[in-house]
């Protein structure tokens, strides 16, 4: 069962994400994709994913700076497609630039999380975000 789709190109970030998920009491199911283009193909069932039944996640966590299509383009594509237009989309980025935040919200992001620097802060943020989006606010695709 797919709870979280995490779009992230930095292997360290992905590794730390895997680690903190594994330390959770009830670890959610997740998939990590390392490029924007692949994420779009997956969510829109096109390209390599054409004809496959790709389960939709309950939450998409997305980095902004990605190879191929960047995070903003992914948000735009997701919001423009009827299958995914109500999917909970949370930006998870190092950038604290207000311009990036405004742009993400303008394109339809549901939330914007700035990556903290310390591991403890990261794991605390992830725990609370996952709790909020998967337990408190359950969206059935």
């Amino acid at each position, binding site marked *: 069962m797919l709870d979280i789709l995490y779009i992230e190109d930095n292997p360290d*970030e992905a590794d730390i994400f895997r680690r903190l998920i594994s330390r959770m009491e009830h670890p959610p199911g997740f998939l990590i994709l390392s490029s924007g283009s692949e994420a779009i193909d997956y969510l829109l069932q096109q390209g390599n994913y054409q004809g496959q039944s790709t389960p939709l996640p309950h939450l998409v966590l997305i980095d902004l700076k990605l190879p191929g299509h960047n995070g903003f383009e992914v948000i735009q594509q997701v919001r423009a497609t009827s299958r995914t237009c109500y999917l909970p989309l949370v930006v998870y980025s190092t950038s604290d*630039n207000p311009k990036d935040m405004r742009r993400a919200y303008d394109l339809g992001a549901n939330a914007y999380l700035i*990556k903290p*620097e*310390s591991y403890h802060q990261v794991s605390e943020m992830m725990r609370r975000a996952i709790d909020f989006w998967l337990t408190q606010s359950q969206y059935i695709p």
Partner: protein
Amino acid sequence: MKVTPDLTNCEKEPIQWPGFIQSYGFLIAIDPVAFTIWQVSENIEGLAGQPVNSLIGQPLVNLQLGDLSGSLLHDMLVIAMRSGTPEAFNPYPLKLHGRDWLAIVHRHDGALIVELEPTSQLYGGLSKPLHTLLAQAMSDIQRSKTLAQLLEKTAQQIKQITGFDRVMIYRFGEDWHGEVVAEAREEHLVPFLGLHYPASDIPRQARELYKINLVRGVADVNEPRVPILPVNVAQYDRPLDLTHANLRAVSPVHIEYLSNMGVGASMSISLLYRSELWGLIACHHYSGPRFIDYPARQSIKLVSQLLSTVLEIRKDDEDAEVSGRLHDNEQALHQQMTADWDVVQGLTKHPITALDLNEATGAALLFEEELHLLGDTPAPDDILTLIDWLKNTTSESVFQTNQLPNLYAPAEGFRDKAAGVLMVVLSRQMNEYLLWFKPEQIQQVSWGGNPDKPVERTNTGDVRLSPRKSFDKWTQTVRNKSLPWQQVEVALALKLREDLLQIVAGKANQIRSLNEQLRLANEELEAFSYTVSHDLRSPLSSIKRYTEIYQEDYGHQMDETARGIFDRITKASDRMSMLIRNILQYSQVGSSGLTRRLLPISEMLQQLREELLMGETARTITLQIGETPDLEGDQTMVNQVFSNLLSNAIKYTRPVPEARISVRGMQSNQEVIYAVTDNGIGIDMKQAGKVFELFQRLDSAASYEGYGVGLAIVKRILSRHQGKVWFESVPYQTTTFYVSFPRRIS
């Protein structure tokens, strides 16, 4: 009836159809087809032996003029008319009472006009054969080096040919008053050379006539004129038009004018320059009548036409020389401005300046709000006031006058420098003007008689229209005038204006293109900042996080020393991360957009006070907020200014037992100033230069955390707001940072 005492009335006199001829000849006007007589001069009566009215309407063949038969005259005219241009064969020699006479024929006013006039033998012959005199005249013209010399030789030649007592060359000014510029006279006569005569001496319609009929004369001032009868031409209801008739009687006013001068006979020959009357050759005879016959008149006409041609060529040469030099200078100025890429420098800082563009003696350039002066000019304040007056006086791009004080009274104060002004408008919007000045020429003008007193009063006190009686030299001083501005001077001023505007426009384009480059560079910088924030911070985060993870997983196996080492790694990566954040902030101040609006500073300061004092519970700090005038600025940036100044105040008052910090604003018409004061460690003024430099830290601050970025950011933000930042400090007593924001930023 009251007569208006104004000699310009002369201008209304129809001098081309006076209805009279001079008495030395006879005039017959005939029907050019039927050869019947329309009009004759009254003196024909004596010659024909029958009353004039009996001749009118008769065929010419019936006329008998003494021993001259009408049929001879008739046959001659028939042949003349057959050629189509009877004027071409003038004169037609005749014998009248055994003497040589000439018939001069021309067609005008619908009539064939026949004038009979004697040959010169009647009044004495010429000193030399005509062709010899003419040849001499031509060689003199060729040999003269200057215009003055040429005119004088011509006057002498004409005097020799005609035998007049005085021959003057009279030159018209712009206002049509005349000046005697050359003279040949009998020795006993008072010289008229250099005298001026008012324009009314030769009225407008006379000048018009002189352009058509180049030679005319009065053979004897004292002889009564002879009427032409009947008075009116049948078909016109007015007298015959005598424009081209040599016998035409001149106006009685002119006869009176000549008599007043003591002139017995006169002749004048027109000098034309480019179809306009340039001057006259005026001949006066004082010792009785003088008649110049047709062949001599033709010769003089030839000489005058020759002189006119030479005038044109000479004047063209002179103009061409001056104009060539000025054009070269204009070219040079253009090149200088282009090469310097600077209008002011190009016009004022080389051997050739704007002053070499014309004959002006001073020039002023008001450009980019600065006044630059060249040569002899009025005082700067006078020039600025003059420009204010000029720009409201004219809406044209060029203005010129050679009598400024007569238009603008304050100019009398500096007429010795600027009685004449030529101004070109560079830009009304930018208030940019270029002016040239010519000084006053105080002229002593000598008039042939007082020109203001042309009117005579009779004994009874009635005003009578009459030319003046006295032609004695009368000197007048003319003030407030400079030399006039020549066509070429105005033309070149306009050309220079075009060159200058082209350079100004070129510069504006260059600035636009530099701005565009700057904008692109800023965009690149922003992209770079983004990369820095992301790419440098990500690996740093990894270092930090894995250090934490290592401590979490293997911390229990580590001893004190190992834990200490890990602490250092964590702290170093914290510092680096803070540094990157600061650099990013600093660069964003320069590159990100600025949104100005009126900011409620009071709220901003209260919120900052709350945030900043939150972590300082262990100390006694009073942060007092005074007057808080609103100011216009970018909210994020202004917030950062106060945040940085207040955190510094908090940071550097740490060693003080009771920290007292205050922030208060003041406003004037131009600016809003905020002052942040503390009683902290302060700044040694010896190191004042370093305070706002990026990454510069003072010795006294070495033990405090920081990277030397905060105040550099403050300075950068203020400079982006066209504001200022400065400080005063007495260490451990009072240190104040001031920031000033301009009001009403456009």
